[in-house]
């Protein structure tokens, strides 16, 4: 069957009304924080005042006597469950056991009739600590004789997502990843030009506006958890492990989620909430505040020492990098971030000699994990900064220099991985045109274009069920979570397109692990590509069944039927799917099931599922008096194969780029000693309305070159990754100042400009 092209689709490739739209604009959309169960109690957490300390004793007796208090949980009364979880490394106790590893770690949970009683009883929990020397940053953690964050090594989790073995030594190294091809030493020895530097990418907080929340009900029939989780099936896995339950006894339901951006990936507070319910024998709700969410997950901040070499013709010949990720107190997903950071530092370029050593390092700080961009953001900043630095050494235009080195579609950038499935030269040309790089720049302005390529899609294990009803309606059962990215709208469009029904007749049933089939995760930009393809295949499977039923009704062979939109034709007769179902079963209201599952075989055997492209351009204005950078122009490219919903792809790109702007210019979690200094929204500044660029172009590229439905591939992270490098490169163009540390705060820029002036003065004298 030939594939439809843009212009030939009925529902797909149109910006239809969002499935969740009316619910969200009327306030009727239900988020986990809005759910109340009958007889529900509330939990509040006592957190550690030290970054690293032994817990000598915990006395909860007085707290238990407080009005309304039902139970107090702490590391010494968790007998009967296995309190450790972790999909990559099973190192995370649901409450600190024996010692605390970061300031803010949950030490005890009080369950009470209402939130206030729980909160007020916290101060009656007596904990005695013996403070231990800690390691608060990477160098301290790697020093000889450094105190250990974890004295023991742990078993690997079942969803590591990559093959690198864990670190089995007792050290602060959580994960080491090594990547190498060619002969780097020889290539650097013969290079015409080399740039070298150390770059620092900050510790950032995703700020999903809905903080972590979950509600657990542990009873005789098993465990039910409502949560703001991105990956309900992996949460189910961890919960089954903690409580020794079969998978079918753990039900994880995810209603609407108030933002994720990676920060709600994997298991967070669900085991603790479930343990509270198990202890209290009541449904229990645990709602964190934003300040507590800031003590729960952040990104891995990164220090990257990197050098890149070119030959006389301006061809990249080698790149060597050492990446140190500050992973915080628990592994969470940082081992995979380490793997991805190593893979993604190559960029979308052809580089014959590469050597990368990447290390995720435990420290006594808030645990780091997934964050939109996922390693790519951390390494695209140094990689793309060096592209501009090299272009200058070669007296070549930075865009020209990139063009010369970009891998073409079908070319391998990474031995062993899928060849590049995008036309980056085309993408860059569009950005250049939209940015009008040929126009003269005003004084104090700078422009830059940068790009990235991320091995995306995660493990392609996805399944779905599509119900086709005799009244013409269709339901899609999906384990993908609706985080706002619009997955449920996209899946609905695909089902409507395939089954030939109006959009309104398709219902999407969201994740409930007791009802919806297995989906590995909602992240790595995979949903449209993998779940979308599964929905398409499930519809096609249903259509094959319907055709066979029609053949039986029409007393002919299935091959004689002509498939039409929403039915079949045979000679002068036409049967809609509704007719087929009603006649076949002889009853109204019947339904059939179409199924599909995807796994790592066939055209999905080779990873990544697709390369997610980032290609962005900016123009900035720098105020020399204050050091303030203003974004004047932004260009993004959504190279998504086919935009199932163009307006939502644009929305993802602008949202992602705006996050890049935040980290590029303002966002950084700051530690002073063991204390997080700006752990609240007053002091942690995220982009606002007034930061919006006056001119924005959100471009789409639809080459139908992905493995998703109709040639689609994912988006949503790509436009974040190159933005910080764009800003730093544009700052250089505007002022001649090269900053290798983010964010480019006014103070940092102002100091650098002053230093530059002082140097100039010295030269003049």
């Amino acid at each position, binding site marked *: 069957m030939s594939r439809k092209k843009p212009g030939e689709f009925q529902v797909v490739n149109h*910006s239809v*009304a*969002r499935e*969740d*739209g*009316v*619910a*969200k*604009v*009327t*306030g*009727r*959309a*239900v*988020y986990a*924080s*809005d759910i109340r169960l009958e007889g529900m109690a509330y939990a509040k957490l006592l957190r550690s005042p030290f970054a690293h300390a032994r817990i000598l004793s915990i006395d909860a007796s007085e707290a238990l006597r407080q009005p309304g208090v039902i139970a107090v949980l702490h590391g010494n009364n968790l007998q009967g469950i296995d309190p450790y979880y972790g999909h990559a490394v099973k190192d995370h106790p649901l409450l600190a056991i024996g010692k605390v590893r970061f300031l803010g770690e949950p030490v005890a949970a009080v369950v009470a009739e209402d939130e206030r009683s729980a909160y007020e009883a916290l101060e009656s929990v007596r904990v005695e600590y013996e403070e231990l020397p800690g390691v608060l940053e990477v160098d301290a953690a790697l020093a000889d004789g450094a105190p250990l964050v974890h004295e023991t090594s742990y078993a690997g989790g079942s969803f590591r997502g990559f093959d690198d073995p864990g670190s089995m030594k007792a050290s602060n190294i959580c994960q080491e990843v090594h990547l190498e091809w060619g002969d780097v030493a020889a290539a650097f020895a013969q290079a015409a030009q080399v740039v070298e530097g150390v770059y620092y990418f900050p510790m950032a907080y*995703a*700020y*999903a*506006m*809905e*903080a972590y929340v979950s509600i657990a009900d542990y009873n005789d029939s098993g465990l039910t958890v409502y949560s703001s989780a991105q990956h309900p099936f992996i949460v189910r896995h961890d919960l089954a492990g903690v409580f020794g339950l079969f998978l079918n006894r753990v039900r994880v339901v995810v209603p*609407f*989620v*108030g*933002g*994720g*951006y990676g920060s709600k990936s994997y298991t967070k507070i669900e085991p603790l909430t479930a343990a509270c319910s198990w202890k209290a024998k009541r449904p229990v709700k645990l709602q964190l*505040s*934003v*300040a507590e969410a800031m003590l729960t997950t952040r990104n891995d901040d990164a220090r990257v020492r990197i050098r890149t070499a070119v030959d006389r013709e301006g061809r990249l010949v080698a790149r060597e990098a050492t990446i140190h990720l500050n992973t915080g107190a628990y592994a969470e997903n940082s081992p995979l971030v380490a793997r991805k950071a190593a893979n993604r530092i190559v960029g979308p370029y052809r580089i014959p000699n590469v050597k990368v050593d990447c290390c995720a390092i435990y420290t006594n700080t808030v645990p780091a994990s997934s964050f939109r961009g996922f390693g790519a953001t951390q390494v695209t900043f140094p990689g793309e900064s060096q592209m501009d630095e090299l272009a200058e050494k070669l007296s070549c235009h930075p865009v020209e220099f990139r063009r010369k080195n970009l891998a073409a579609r079908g070319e391998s950038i990474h031995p062993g991985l899928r060849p590049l499935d995008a036309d980056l030269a085309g993408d860059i040309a569009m950005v250049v045109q939209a940015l009008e790089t040929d126009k003269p720049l005003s004084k104090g302005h700078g422009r830059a274009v940068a790009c990235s390529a991320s091995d995306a899609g995660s493990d392609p294990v996805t399944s779905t069920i599509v119900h086709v009803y005799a009244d013409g309606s269709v339901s899609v059962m999906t384990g993908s979570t609706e*985080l*706002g*990215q*619009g997955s449920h709208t996209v899946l609905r469009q695909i089902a409507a397109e395939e089954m030939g029904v109006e959009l309104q007749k398709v219902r999407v049933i969201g994740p409930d692990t007791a009802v919806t089939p297995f989906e590995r995760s909602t992240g790595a930009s995979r949903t449209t590509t993998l779940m979308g393809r599964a929905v398409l295949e499930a519809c096609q499977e249903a259509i094959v069944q319907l055709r066979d039923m029609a053949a039986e009704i029409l007393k002919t062979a299935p091959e004689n039927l002509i498939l039409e939109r929403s039915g079949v034709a045979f000679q002068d007769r036409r049967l809609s799917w509704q007719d087929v179902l009603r006649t076949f079963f002889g009853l109204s209201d019947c339904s059939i099931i179409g199924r599909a599952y995807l796994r790592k075989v066939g055209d999905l055997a080779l990873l990544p599922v697709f390369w997610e492209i980032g290609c962005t351009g900016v123009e900035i204005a720098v105020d020399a008096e204050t050091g303030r950078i203003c974004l004047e122009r932004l260009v993004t490219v959504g190279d998504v194969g086919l935009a199932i919903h163009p*307006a*939502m792809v644009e*929305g*993802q790109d*602008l*949202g992602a*780029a*705006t*996050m890049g702007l935040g980290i590029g210019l303002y966002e950084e979690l700051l530690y002073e000693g063991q204390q997080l200094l700006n752990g*609240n*929204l*007053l002091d942690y500044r*995220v*982009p*606002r*309305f*007034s*930061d*919006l660029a006056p001119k*924005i172009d959100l471009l789409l590229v639809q080459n139908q070159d992905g493995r998703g439905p109709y040639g689609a591939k994912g988006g949503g992270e790509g436009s974040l990754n190159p933005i910080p490098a764009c800003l730093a490169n544009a700052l250089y163009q505007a002022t001649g100042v090269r900053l290798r540390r983010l964010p480019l705060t006014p103070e940092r820029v102002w100091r650098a400009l002053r230093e530059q002036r002082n140097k100039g003065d010295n030269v003049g004298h």
Partner: protein
Amino acid sequence: MKLAFVLNGKPVELDIEPQETLAEVLRNRCHLTGLKISCEVQVCGSCTTLVDDLPVSACTYLAYEARGRRVTTIEGLSEGQPLHPIQQAFLDEFAFQCGFCTPGMILMAKALLLENPNPTDFDLVAYTDGNLCRCTGYRPILKAIRRAASLMREPEAARP
């Protein structure tokens, strides 16, 4: 203590604790969960609620302050119609993703347009800057408010 006010057009009388915020009273006692709580420090605007048509941050506004006043939440915005023009404009412009900031944004927009039915771009940004959205990058929200402004000025002409 007793608290009486007009909630979405209907008089209500409740027993509350003196320290309760308007957000707590509306979410927990009145079950109006369209009101969303995020930062709890008056920075994000997700809890924006109208008191006598003026926007307040319900997370830090004591419920008692609302005594005798008119309180409007997202649930009461459309006054019995299926959708208020601002809600329709948010739909048309895809001015939300996760939707967590959306009730607050829409109520903020309502207060803005009541005060200034014809805002310039400068007015818009000045008024909206206290509401955060982490998903959209803001432009669709500005477009939606502009669209709503024209819908509300010329309800007939603005319809396609």
